[in-house]
């Protein structure tokens, strides 16, 4: 089933510029229902407070990293079903393995464009 254009997306990144870029790329692809958080701790609180359908999270963040956020999501019965796309600045094999073990749906290496993001969404929501 293709991704619902009305799905509620949480964008998590410590850099405001990157959050803005991701939001704009998603908008280009028709997904306008997006909110953002600047670290994993804030994101987790938002996820618990209301319903989201998809999480796009950076890997390297202060307070709670993207991997820690992913593990927290998968450990929570109310959140564990949410697809998570991990955004990384480097494609380190050990990071990819760790994210895969923690239950990530896919990962994307920065910088990326709308076409790359579309490919990931098509794969995750196939």
């Amino acid at each position, binding site marked *: 089933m293709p991704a619902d254009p009305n799905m509620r997306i949480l964008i998590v990144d410590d850099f405001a*510029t990157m959050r803005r*870029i991701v939001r704009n*790329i998603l908008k280009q692809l028709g997904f306008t229902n997006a909110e953002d958080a600047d670290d994993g701790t804030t994101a987790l609180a938002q996820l618990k407070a209301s319903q989201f359908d998809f999480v796009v999270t950076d890997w390297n963040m*202060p307070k709670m990293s993207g991997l820690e956020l992913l593990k927290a999501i998968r450990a929570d019965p109310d959140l564990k079903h949410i697809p998570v796309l991990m955004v990384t*600045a480097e*494609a380190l094999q050990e990071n990819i393995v760790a994210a895969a073990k923690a239950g990530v749906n896919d990962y994307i290496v920065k*910088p990326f*464009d709308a076409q790359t993001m579309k490919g990931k969404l098509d794969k995750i929501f196939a």
Partner: protein
Amino acid sequence: MSQASDTADIIAKIIGTAGVEVIQRSTGSSVYLAPSVQRVPSIHLRPDIGCFVQFGGDYSGLIIVNFEADSALAFYRTSMMFMGMPEEELVDDPSHEEVLDSIGELVNQISGQVRQQIQRIYGLSAVNKQPKAIWVQDSILLSVQDTVMLDSQCRRLSFKLGDELPFHIEFFIEKTEFASFNDIEIPT
């Protein structure tokens, strides 16, 4: 030349290559890297915008990227438009928080690629904290706490964005030597 200098020069080439690749990928523009590395006595945040990131783990050090205002603004605008942001939504002030933030994200990506390459080549890993970009009025000398920064481990690389807009990377790597076990023989 000491072995430590050799390793610093190797790191310089890794950082230079990562800088070119990341900025070309981010902007779609050509990036020139001067085909030489300067051995410098110390490293500084320099006007107009300096960004630094410290890394530590199996090895430790500090990377600084210095932009003049025109170069920083050109990088910000080119990279944002390259990733699909409308030109009318971009700022024109090089000291704007959004420009500093984009430089911070750039350094984050360069640092990530450098750490990835070092892990691929040497199997050594490190992590970095969030890079900090600031508007700089005068040069600021940086050092790493509890570390003697010998000039043999400080380097400067010179770049140009789009063939005319200069920027520089300066870095310090702790006194260390990366030597592969493949090149070491145990006497029999």
